[in-house]
């Protein structure tokens, strides 16, 4: 069985597909909105050095990633152990060496990886224009505004993904999530601007 098939099998027997998907969207959304908030905060403040902005955003991105990994691992380990215990009770046998035991050990790691990497990767993508500008590569618009556009685009894509899952209009779902990001930006401008 290939690694991908094995992962699919373990997710299938623990019925955790939807949990992985939910964590991907929820924490991805967290990452995008956090970056959007920090970048808009810098955009409305007096001009700061780009390396300071990158470090502030990177610090937040790493913290989101570590928080995602650790919180998901701790909670999912407890949930999987509980589910395995209930199954062992019903089966009146030890399932530690079975696929269920393996799933109880491996799926929390997989879920934690998704939960941590979603905000980290999304944050790093949003920071791309800042890195390019820091490296001296000219951009057609301010790196902060380019990062804001990427953040809005990624939030839109998360909405498209949700629309695809729900089997409804991807455009409507994408616009809905982007409106949330726009409302967040407006609130930040209102209070920090």
């Amino acid at each position, binding site marked *: 069985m290939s690694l991908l098939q094995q992962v699919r099998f373990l997710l299938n027997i623990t*019925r955790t597909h939807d949990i992985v998907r939910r964590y991907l969207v929820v924490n991805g959304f967290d990452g995008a909105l956090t970056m959007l908030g920090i970048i808009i905060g810098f955009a409305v403040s007096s001009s700061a050095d780009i390396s300071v902005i990158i470090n502030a955003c990177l610090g937040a991105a790493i913290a989101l990633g570590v928080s995602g990994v650790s919180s998901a691992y701790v909670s999912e380990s407890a949930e999987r152990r509980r589910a395995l215990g209930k199954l062992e009770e*019903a*089966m009146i046998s030890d399932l530690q*060496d*079975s*696929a*269920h035991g393996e799933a109880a050990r491996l799926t929390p790691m997989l879920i934690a990886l998704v939960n941590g990497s979603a905000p980290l990767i999304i944050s790093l993508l949003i920071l791309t224009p800042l890195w390019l500008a820091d490296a001296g590569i000219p951009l057609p618009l301010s790196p902060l505004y380019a990062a804001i556009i990427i953040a809005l685009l990624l939030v839109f894509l998360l909405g498209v993904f949700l629309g695809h899952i729900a089997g409804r209009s991807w455009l409507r779902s994408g616009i809905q999530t982007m409106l949330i990001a726009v409302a967040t930006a407006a609130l930040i401008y209102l209070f920090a601007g």
Partner: protein
Amino acid sequence: MTVVRRVVLDVLKPHQPNALEFARAIARTGADYCVRLTVLEVDENTETLQIEIEGKLIDFEAIQSSISDMGGSLHSIDEVEVCSEPDIG
């Protein structure tokens, strides 16, 4: 030498993997196995199955190991078909 051609097993398994995946995994333990799986009873967390396996040379240990790998538990061997064959050489 004796060879096992057919066994009928009474097995308890969790709902997952489902009956199709369970039967496939058992069939994969041999080259020419034909597996017939019947779900006899469904409880809150478990299913009771009757599994009939036919093949030219059934490896019972491999089948038993495949069942426990998937979290199943063999309750009884309800039917067997064993044939004797002349030793070659």
